């Protein structure tokens, strides 16, 4: 791909982000403009900011890649990512805002008046934040590799440095405007190329075999296999090979492979003829590569789908960078309106990645062989349109992708750094916040360089699972159940969230590889969320004496509209 346009586009996004962040609100006003200067953030602006912060690498690159590989089953991802806000709207948004809490640990303290539960919630914020940051950095690395051929780690390092620098320097002062700007940038970056791609597809005769099995090559194509794979052939295939297939080395020989499984070593170039079926590929693993949860999804599609639905539906409310944005709403009703607007905005956005996925299945099916399925969105403009137009659209997409990494990563870093500063490092002002920021970013950066890559949408799914099993019970029971006690909340978060975290850790390290156990660990939400709820309820019921004394007043504040509050407190 041509990087002449893409690199400036990425640089432009980075600079624009920093500038809007630093100067977005440096417009001074005189007192005559007082009402303009002190106007609260409206639901629409705040919704755009929340959406901007929320739409991450997983949404921008990951979904298209998964749809490309696995077909329409993966549409549950965008559905889940959106529907999470519906649950948030119904159960959490307004009471959470009325609680006055800024972060999730704040909420735990406001509801349960317990420092221990607060610290535990802080620990989970850090855990979820790190899990979510990891795929952002990996996505950045992938994008830069696809665009310029730079080494894997460079993109992640760039995002990490930019985000750490802006957050640590306090550059994200006007964060609402930055994030709202990022949303519209991301939407544009996907929408405009998508329109051109669909037009090109139309003029191509609108081929519709996107989800027919198997996909076929539309033209002769050379595929370089990035990691060793096993090709599963249902029927014989003729292919020109330079490299090693089934242990034998070839240089430009034409091979007739019979049906069955064939091992292709890394670095091999396969040239497929026009009309050849795209063979099914299986990562042959090895210690370096983490097996994708999606693969176990193939084995147990129903279980995996329900696990995904539960994790995304219930996990959204516990994402630390989303929760803090609700504080900007002036009151509970505004928080609710904001959530409705968010539903509309991200719903509109999520119409686009599946389009890329479907087009990718037609025009770039070989990505399933090279393993870079997350690159589908980046490669398509060049592949379908080509020329300067394709390059320009590709640059736009690349810019949007970087906007996705930057906005989500900066939001998460702020949330994690806030917790690290407040609850872990002894609080002594700004210098510690900087230390916290560096720590918040250093962990996932180290992990992204060291750990094998997981498809970004899957990695984000794991963060959702942990959030759904720890914070969802805390928020839902905390808001709707009087008899919740601090020991119950702590036990529920530890058992639910802790078990999900362990399952995630096992999945990321590649244990146990396959089978029922692997499916259970790769999609933990289906058992860990009920486990979290159950533990929280049972332990609370077992410790009735520990219900915090002010519970009735606290719940009244959560649920009564602000206008009535004065009469209650008087």
């Amino acid at each position, binding site marked *: 791909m041509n990087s002449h346009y893409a690199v400036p586009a990425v640089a432009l996004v980075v600079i624009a982000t920093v500038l809007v962040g630093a100067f977005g609100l*440096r417009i*001074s*006003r*005189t*007192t005559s*403009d*007082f009402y303009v*200067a*002190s*106007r*609260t*953030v409206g639901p629409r602006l705040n919704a755009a900011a929340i959406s901007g912060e929320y739409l991450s690498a997983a949404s921008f690159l990951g979904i298209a890649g998964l749809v490309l590989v696995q077909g329409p089953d993966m549409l549950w991802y965008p559905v889940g990512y959106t529907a999470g806000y519906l649950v948030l709207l119904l159960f959490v948004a307004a009471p959470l805002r009325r609680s*006055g809490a*800024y*972060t999730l640990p*704040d909420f735990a*303290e*406001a509801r349960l008046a317990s420092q*221990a539960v607060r*610290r*535990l919630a802080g*620990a989970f914020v*850090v855990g979820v934040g790190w899990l979510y940051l990891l795929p952002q950095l990996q996505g950045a690395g992938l994008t830069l590799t696809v665009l310029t051929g730079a080494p894997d780690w460079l993109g992640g390092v760039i995002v990490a440095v930019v985000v750490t620098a802006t957050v640590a320097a*306090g550059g994200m*002062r*006007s964060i*609402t405007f930055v994030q709202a700007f990022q949303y519209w940038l991301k939407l544009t970056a996907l929408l405009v190329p998508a329109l051109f791609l669909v037009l090109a597809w139309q003029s191509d005769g609108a081929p519709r075999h996107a989800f027919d099995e198997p996909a076929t090559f539309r033209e002769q194509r050379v595929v370089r296999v990035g990691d060793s794979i096993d090709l599963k052939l249902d029927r014989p295939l003729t292919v020109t090979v330079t490299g090693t297939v089934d242990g034998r080395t070839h240089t430009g020989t034409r091979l007739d492979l019979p049906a069955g499984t064939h091992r292709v070593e890394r670095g091999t170039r396969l040239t497929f003829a026009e009309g050849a079926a795209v063979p099914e590929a299986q990562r042959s693993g090895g*210690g*370096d*590569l*983490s097996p994708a949860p999606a693969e176990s999804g193939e084995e147990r599609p129903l279980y995996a789908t329900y696990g995904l639905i539960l994790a995304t539906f219930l996990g959204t409310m516990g994402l630390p960078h989303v929760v803090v944005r609700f*504080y*900007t*709403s*002036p*009151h509970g009703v505004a928080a609710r309106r904001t959530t409705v607007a968010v539903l509309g905005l991200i719903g509109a956005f999520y119409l686009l990645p599946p389009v890329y996925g479907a087009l990718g299945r037609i025009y770039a099916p070989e990505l399933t062989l090279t393993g870079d399925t997350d690159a589908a969105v980046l490669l398509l403009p060049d592949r379908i349109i080509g020329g300067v137009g394709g390059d320009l659209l590709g640059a736009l997409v690349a810019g949007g992708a970087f906007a996705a990494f930057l906005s989500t990563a900066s939001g998460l870093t*702020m949330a994690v750094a*806030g917790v690290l*500063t*407040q609850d872990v490092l002894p609080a002594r002002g700004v210098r510690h*916040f900087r230390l916290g920021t560096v720590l918040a970013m250093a*962990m996932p950066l180290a*992990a992204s360089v*060291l*750990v094998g890559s997981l498809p970004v949408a899957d990695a984000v799914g794991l963060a959702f699972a942990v959030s759904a099993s720890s914070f969802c019970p805390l928020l839902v029971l905390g808001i709707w159940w009087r008899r919740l006690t601090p020991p119950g909340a702590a036990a529920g978060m530890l058992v639910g969230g*802790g078990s999900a*975290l*362990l399952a995630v*850790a*096992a999945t*990321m*390290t*590649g244990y146990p590889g396959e089978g029922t156990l692997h499916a259970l660990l790769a999609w933990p939400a289906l058992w860990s969320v009920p486990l979290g709820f159950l533990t929280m309820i049972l332990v609370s019921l077992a410790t009735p004496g520990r219900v915090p004394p002010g519970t009735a007043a606290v719940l009244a*504040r959560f649920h009564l509209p*602000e*206008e009535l*509050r*004065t009469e209650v*407190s*008087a």
Partner: protein
Amino acid sequence: MSGFLAGLCVAVLPVLALGVWLGRRTARPQSLGGLGTPVEHATFETLHTATLAAPPLRAGLTEETARKSARKLRSLLGTDALCLTDRKQVLVWDGDGAHHRTEIMERLAGPLETGRGEAFQLTCDLLDCPVRWAVVAPLTVDDRVHGALVACAPRESAVLVRAAGEVARWVSVQLELADLDQSRTRLIEAEIKALRAQISPHFIFNSLAVIASFVRTDPERARELLLEFADFTRYSFRRHGDFTTLADELHAIDHYLALVRARFGDRLSVTLQIAPEVLPVALPFLCLQPLVENAVKHGLEGKADKCHIQITAQDAGAEALVVIEDDGAGMDPGLLRRILAREVSPSGGIGLSNVDDRLRQVYGDDHGLVIETATGAGMKITVRLPKYQPGVHSAGRLIPE
């Protein structure tokens, strides 16, 4: 394989961090091991048990606190059964022989009345009942009997009488401390109420004088100013709630500035720079307006030319940063320090030190005013307001848009 190891490290680290947290929370003083002689060792043990029993009692004598401390107290005395009562009922019975509850309560009437200790035999139909004798030690706070500590044993023991008396005295001291804690809380509440900012009488007088000056020349302007004055006084005289939102406070400041500008005209210019994210932050009622009033006073004091005031509110993570800056006469830092320490009373009311005190009361000592000033160099006041603080909730909602 390195990927696997690295992954493992990444996975284990959060768990480790969690462990450290929990460990720190539940950490007990380390056992003394071989330190000291057996006698010293026993002393340490006793002191440690006493220390563990103290915190629950510091919350006063209730069923819950009694339950938490009873086991520790019993191990301190080494008896078979220990019971804590208030003036009416048994709060907790730790150990054997709980069926003596009612009997104990009947026998307690005397000691609770007189406040003197007593020891008596218990009557029991059960042959193997381990509790035959009880010693009562009253718990007194300021000469008032709050309850009693009853230690039960199989037979009479002079040592136990003495020990129970000592432990009861120790518990009484803890209860006295609890009383002290309570009165301290009440004192702080009263102080906050007393500190509730009042608008200065000078301001009311000056405002009315200015409005009067416009009544004939520009009645419309006078009417507007009167309305501003009404809005401002309504805000500052309101009775409900100790906290407000930054948005409401800024509106009050706007009304205030309108009145001040009417008086000083072009001599005063104000710029605002406010991040909308921090407008919902809750803060003590009328704690920024005195700072602006102070800036106006210092800005216009002793000079005839113009004064400029800059009000900034920034979003800084979990805090909002409010800065009020003027380019006026400034102040000698030493004098300012003495004013804040209330060693000298300033001429113009109690504005700054009052705000400083209230901020420290509400948010803790590290959230007081930060003032940068020098004679002739203006003054810059910085306030850091946490976005969330337990117990700080604004009453009422923001002014609708």
